[in-house]
């Protein structure tokens, strides 16, 4: 009776918010300078990537682009693997089939969504140059203790969540942007936004978070994509 639809409108509103907030920002917030070391090296679980690339058409409707998304995912995984060799942690990439019952698989889906919501809240509430807000010793931002299931299933100490929403102006949109500029106005183009978090799998707390929001950058092709991903993973705790 109804069509189920992706909520593109909400995304557009968010993109507009970035534009208002400023052109290019990255902000790292961290509770840890060093990862907890279980012998011989901390183990990090890379969660299913929550990544979507879209094209912004002439009128401002976002069209999902699975080909671009697939390329971007490949680049992100590549860079995380490179980080692993450089920083010397152990990495487990989330398996296609989670080795647990369906309820736990559902929990993984939900955690990825919770991370998206918490990450957005962090963005809205952050103050530039400030550490992760905390209540005394306890970090304020957490995904909840349910994450312990991940620890017991994989033996990982931390989980790395990656959330990226990227949009690129179509040719038609670019024309409208130029026309808008000629009329001394601003017509919104593509926006690159994302955040990554490192979550302590004992407590669910976000111990490190990096936010990226700008109107430049490109995840579709290797060179610029690597630059974006490095910005996203900047100041990753060693």
């Amino acid at each position, binding site marked *: 009776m*109804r*069509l189920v639809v992706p909520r593109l409108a909400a995304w557009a509103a968010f993109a507009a918010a970035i534009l208002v907030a400023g052109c290019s920002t990255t902000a790292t917030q961290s509770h840890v300078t060093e990862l907890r070391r279980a012998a011989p090296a901390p183990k990090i679980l890379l969660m299913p990537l929550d990544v979507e690339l879209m094209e912004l058409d*002439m*009128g401002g409707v976002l069209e*999902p682009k699975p080909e671009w998304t697939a390329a971007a995912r490949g680049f992100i995984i590549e860079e995380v693997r490179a980080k692993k060799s450089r920083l010397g942690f152990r990495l487990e990439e989330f398996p296609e089939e989670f080795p647990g019952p369906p309820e736990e698989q559902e929990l993984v889906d939900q955690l990825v969504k919770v991370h998206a919501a918490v990450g957005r809240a962090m963005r809205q509430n952050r103050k530039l140059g400030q550490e992760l807000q905390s209540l005394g010793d306890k970090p304020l931002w957490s995904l909840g203790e349910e994450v312990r299931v991940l620890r017991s299933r994989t033996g990982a100490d931390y989980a790395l969540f990656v959330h990226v929403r990227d949009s690129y102006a179509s040719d*038609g949109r670019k024309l*409208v942007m130029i026309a808008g500029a000629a009329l001394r106005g601003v017509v919104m183009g593509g926006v690159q936004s994302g955040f990554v978090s490192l979550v302590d799998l004992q407590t669910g707390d976000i111990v490190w978070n990096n936010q990226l929001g700008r109107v430049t950058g490109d995840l579709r092709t290797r060179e610029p994509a690597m630059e974006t991903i490095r910005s996203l993973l900047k100041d990753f705790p060693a």
Partner: protein
Amino acid sequence: MNRRKFLSAAACGCSALVPGSLFGGSLQARMSPGFRPEPASDENGLWDQFVKQERELKRSRFLIKDPELNAYVAAIACKVAGDFCHDLRVYLVRSPYFNATMAPNGMMQVWSGCLLRCQSEAQLAAILGHEVGHYLRRHGVERFRDAQQKSAFSTLLGLGLSVAGGGIGRFAALGDAFILASSFAFTRDQEREADTMGLDLCSGAGFDPEEAANVWAHLIAERNARENQGFRDLVFATHPVEEEREETLRGLAKGMPGCGDPARRGRDRYLHMLRRERASFFADELKLRDYGASLALFERMLETDKDDLEVAFNLGEVYRLRAREGDDTKALESFQRLAGLPKAPAETWRSLGLVRRARGEGSEAAQAFARYLELKPKADDAAIIRTYIDSGRTS
């Protein structure tokens, strides 16, 4: 019969028989079986979103697992969809509202509230046929493109206005309004198309086409009985006015084979397949606490079959749970009448006990509770019922 052959055959038959048909005859599918969107197309992008949703849906705790019921509903969908059977996947979802959804990639959801409200296989087939109609007409991508066109138009219009002196600020606002307004629900014209197409498919698959109109008659009665009239169902918000829809469907069905034929309704088989899940559907319905609508629903179900004791029990439950002035008497009467029947659900006695207990009739309550435990000694709530029995005796 081959579905496409049927559709083209019906195209002749129908326009001749039903001159009042909205579209002057039957509609053609806008795809062939096994359809996949072109790679790198907008439709492919749209599909991909739903492939992700489907992956999540598959592991949702709200899926109804009952394998027999799942196979049964899938088989009806198959029968209705004909050659397109393998392009569709049906998921039964526990959600107590009347709704079914169709995604552009063939992921169909049927909610438990819909299964509870259907009174026959043909009624369910009518709903599935409607959803298949959305799929075959590619309404999802049509809607998406429509939104794109409208917003592009408004953007250009805005640019034009700002050149004419309206200012760029006004221009930006115009564009945004359009994006938000196109919330991607199907349009009423698309709903009408899906209705027409669904009806053809159902009648062609051997179901009584009039049952489609009966679904709506049912929902109209329920809507009118709703205590909070401010609440509009998800369905009602986007779909053609219900009365118009019922009337159109009934008119169209009249010219079709098998119209009004009880042998083509499959009521008994439908209820048989629902038997293991139905009690939980009733329980979910009652939890909505929309008692006026529930009363209308149950009373109508009893009109179709006055011997459906499960419905009769739940009608009593509405009164017991609503607990307004005089409701306890009505509940008591329902449960007492049921208790006199040999096949009444065991829970009748529990509810009888609860009403008695609320009225302060301790010893009668204890008797009823004892009977419940006799019939269902391993009931989940046996322990608390025993405490009720003890307190009843001492009071």
